[in-house]
């Protein structure tokens, strides 16, 4: 039986990094969007008060 375990270990690490990285990117983009939503909402409230 050929000794080639290093290749499957590398493949599993690569897959974990790609999927994990994408999940992190979704979490970061979601947080940014929520922050923008909050600041937009606060700006709207302040503008309404000013009027």
């Amino acid at each position, binding site marked *: *039986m*050929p*000794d*080639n*375990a290093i*290749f*499957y270990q*590398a*493949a*599993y690490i*690569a*897959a*974990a990094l*790609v*999927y994990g990285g*994408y*999940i992190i990117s*979704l979490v970061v*983009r*979601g947080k940014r*969007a*929520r922050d*923008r*939503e909050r600041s*937009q909402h606060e700006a*709207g409230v302040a503008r309404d008060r000013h009027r």
Partner: protein
Amino acid sequence: MLTVAVLAVGATFVRAIFFTPVEARQGAAQKIFYIHAPSAFIGLYVAFGLVAVAGVLYLWLRDERLDRIAASSAEVGVVFMTVVLLTGPLWGKPIWGTWWTWDARLTLTLFIWFVFLGYLILRGAIDDTGTRARYSAVLGVLGALLVPFIHLSVYLFRTLHPMPIILKPSEPSLPNSMLATFALSFSSFLLLFVALVRARYRLAVTVDALEAEDAAEPSPIAALRAEPIH
């Protein structure tokens, strides 16, 4: 849902690495099959298929929810196909003796990855939501037309890539223990796909709402620019 999907994929990794027998001829490198094949199947048939169906329906119904489904599925599909293009060479090197060969299956897979990468770049380049949705629906449908060619490429051309061992008219050519690991792997990656598309769709809803609000309420600088100078 995403947490459950991640745990399921983790369980698949553990089963594939520690509780699935090593294939006699290929050695441990064959275990790459449990991430390569499900990622390819879901990326090509499910993700890009969904892009095409949602694209056609968008062109017919002009419902922006369909555009969001297509965009989310395309992005997640590109992630799945990136894993396919990374794990394939890592499997090819010990078995074929080469990282890459320009045969029909591999070249078309790389080509469809570039097409859908272009799809994402196109979406980022167009500001008008209607134009963006229309152009990307057309590109998505045209890109997905490659999928049947990729499936048939191993039958139509001489290629190093093996014939399908699961998706074929006769019985799958795998022993039961390996088939069970593949079934778990396929289910967990499908769950991951659904969870990622759902998360990406929710992000798209928030971003679209913000963009719509920005468009309705111009910034003070834009308002000043719009005012006529007397």
